[in-house]
């Protein structure tokens, strides 16, 4: 009896381990494949059969990528929007949250109603576009930053964090004659690193990945982001006319497809770099969000 139970357990465990192993492979292999394809000669990749390692190793894809001002500019724009968008977003979100974190704030019911309503209802893309257009934000770098500076979701997370900070900290500073701005920068922000890090990581990833604004709110080629260029080359390499053609005759064997996977690696690597930090904070973040949301 006991033995058969143990046998059943063994079968049960094996099935679970095998299934989980397969799931893990399906999650990992696509990333791995993109990586090796980016180090394989473009024209060679088109022949197929590259599964485990680069068959025809080359750095040519990366060289072409880095020599092309179009890609370099897109990369820089993406870095710039990620850094400035995250910093300004953090600043606005946390300063508004700081004000709202005071439980004795007058009209706080009104303020919260305004926020929660904005969280659940939206005017939709078309009126939003009209607003951006009227503000003169279209076709400017600011359209990447300003419209996404304040997120109601992060606002609520930051408020609940600031409320946990012991009131004595603020009171003693008040007695010393410090103004609210000083308290905010000198006392509140330094003790709020966990929530600031969570918000920064999520805002940063959002900025880095965003493509729609670059595609529709911007016409200038100078302002295109990495995500947009990537989408462009993906569409190009998938159109039957182009996929077999060599992207740049001067550079041996580099195709739209090999440029596609190269740009994908360039876009994924920064995320992998911040991933350990994301992981450290986001479990807490999503739980908070689920409770508040």
């Amino acid at each position, binding site marked *: 009896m006991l033995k058969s139970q143990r046998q059943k357990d063994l079968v049960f465990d094996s099935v679970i381990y095998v299934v989980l192993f397969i799931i893990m492979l399906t999650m990992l292999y696509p990333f791995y494949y993109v990586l090796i394809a980016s180090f394989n000669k473009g024209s060679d990749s088109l022949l197929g059969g590259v599964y485990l390692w680069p068959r025809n190793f080359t750095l040519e894809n990366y060289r072409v990528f880095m020599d092309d001002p179009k890609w370099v500019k897109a990369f820089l724009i993406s870095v710039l929007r990620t850094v400035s968008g995250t910093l300004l977003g953090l600043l606005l979100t946390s300063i508004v949250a700081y004000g709202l974190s005071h439980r004795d*704030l007058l009209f706080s019911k009104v303020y919260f109603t305004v926020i929660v309503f904005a969280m659940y209802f939206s005017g939709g893309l078309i009126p*939003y576009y009209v607003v951006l257009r009227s503000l003169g934000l279209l076709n400017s770098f600011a359209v990447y930053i300003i*419209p996404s500076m304040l997120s109601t979701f992060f606002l609520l997370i930051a408020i609940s964090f600031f409320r946990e900070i012991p009131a004595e900290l603020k009171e003693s500073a008040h007695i010393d004659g410090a103004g609210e701005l000083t308290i905010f920068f000198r006392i509140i922000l330094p003790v709020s690193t966990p929530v600031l890090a969570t918000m920064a990581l999520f805002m940063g990833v959002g900025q880095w990945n965003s493509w729609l604004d670059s595609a529709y709110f911007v016409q200038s080629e100078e302002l295109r982001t990495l995500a947009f260029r990537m989408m462009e080359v993906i569409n190009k390499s998938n159109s039957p006319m182009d996929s077999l053609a060599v992207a740049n005759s001067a550079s041996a064997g580099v195709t739209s497809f090999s440029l596609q996977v190269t740009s994908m690696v360039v876009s994924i690597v920064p995320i992998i770099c911040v*991933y350990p930090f994301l992981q450290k904070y986001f479990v807490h973040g999503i739980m908070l969000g689920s409770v508040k949301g």
Partner: protein
Amino acid sequence: MELETQPRSLGTGGGRRSILWKRFKKQKVLHLFVGLGMIYLLIFAYTPMFGILMAFKDYSISSGIKGIFTSDWVGLRYFDEFVHDYQFGKLVRNTLVLSLLKVIFAFPAPILLAIMLNEVKHMAFKRFVQTISYLPHFISWVVVVGVSYAFLSADVGVVNKALMAMGFTDEPLAFLTSPNYFWGLAVGSAVWKEMGWWTIIFLAAISGISPSQYEAAEIDGAGRLARIRYITLPGMKGTIVVVLVLTIGSILGGGLVGSNFEQAYLLGNSINNPTSEIVQTYAFRVGLSDGRFSYAAAIDLIQSVISVALIFSSNYIAKRVSGSSLF
């Protein structure tokens, strides 16, 4: 708050107002901070909400924000036009089918994964699988589409090359450019991208179950499957219901697993259009590409109204059926 109202109520009406004013003056910097946020929301969240009016008006983009209020009313003309649009049936069907398929396949996936992970005794393996599984959540849809192309395209896709090399097919299968494959492709990539992420919330629910329940069941001779069925699943019920309500409320937008819009927009093309075009992408195209703003806003509005109705009704049903609900 309670304590403060008492001395205040002692004063006369005028005195009370002056006390409020004093309090407000003391908090003025804080109100300034909050005011920044309110102005921001007024501009970027509330002005677009008023902008919905354009769905009932003959709006032209050149008239700016003011034009939303000054342009002529046309009543329900654009709603009527959409219902009689020759693409209407196709759009509604595609939107509903894609959303339903996601609820059927993508909603249970993280629950199953969480249950399986919970059965793993080997902590390092469990943590590793989990870590890998939510990586795709942080990758943009553009990259996910790029990955799908790298694997499935007819010219360069690994899958087609492998199938042909092994002799399963002579012609490459048009995964990306055939209406027959779009729904599978969209649901599959959505599961791939978001399954691990939603597992976090279900694993948290499981960790709230007391270990003594499992021990008692084990003594009573319950096998592993029985324990999953009678302890783990009931312990997750509340979370499952909340997530299901959220999913159904946002079903037209793509539910918990990613955005229908980004998928349909990025994976869609002129060949798979019969199954890939959904209400949202259509509104986007007629609005931003064709410049028919009023018409697009009307289409958007129909979708939003249905979404709000869905979240309230699913919440009501959840409350009735299971006792747990979102609000």
